[in-house]
């Protein structure tokens, strides 16, 4: 099993990058959802006025 370390490193990099990107998208989604909530709140306030 010569060079197994290299093989495992390559697979680890691929999966780490994919999961990292998914995590990045998830955080972005949460940020956008927060922004929508803020917009909704400010819209409600301006309606009340």
């Amino acid at each position, binding site marked *: 099993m*010569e060079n197994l370390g290299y093989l495992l490193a390559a697979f680890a990099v*691929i999966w780490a990058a*994919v999961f990292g990107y998914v995590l990045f998208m998830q955080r972005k989604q949460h940020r956008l959802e927060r922004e929508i909530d803020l917009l909704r709140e400010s819209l409600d306030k301006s309606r009340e006025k």
Partner: protein
Amino acid sequence: MNRKKLRDRLLLALTFALMMAALATVFLYAPTEKHTGVIQRIFYFHVPVAWVAFLAYFITFIGSILYLSKRKARWDALAAASAEVGVLFTTLVLITGPIWARPVWGIWWTWDARLTTSLVLWLIYIAYLLVRRFAGEPGRGARLAAVVGIAGFIDVPLVFITVNLWRTQHPTTIIFEGGLTGSMLVTLLVCLVAFTLLYILLVRQATGLKMLETEIKNIKRMREE
């Protein structure tokens, strides 16, 4: 559950199942190559990752043309999302390639035609993402990025044909020349399908987020005016 959510969940389940099948075929089904040994198995992920990068840039190319001709935000969102995923996968190509090269060639990197054009490809689409981010007014950024997305695509066929045009250290495209048969070919095909599904899944999500981001920016701008 609405139809879009159901489709997304089905796609996620299918991608997950195929990824598991790909891992099983790579490690349990594919034979160990005679000359390079176990390290050759990187090939089953390196090639699909490169294929996805090419596919991603092709979709960016189409999305950019459609955005410039129709000026619909969804085409810009698709082009941008695909370029983002393309950059991610090109980064993986540029990392997994040298990891394979070190034990096989004895070096991490060489400035041969395939490797150099791949690096240039990565830089072009990094530029695409930077143009979008720093062009100021969003419409201007989208237009400029679309031009980069169309012009930059020239490098994709160039990367592909370099190994046939010049003498390079990089292996040639043996897949289309019948150099890969039996269980090795089956393994590669399973990996290609799995990674293509992963690309579709990621681009669908990224496009949705970009559309949402654009809408929020537009609402904010309208409120300020």
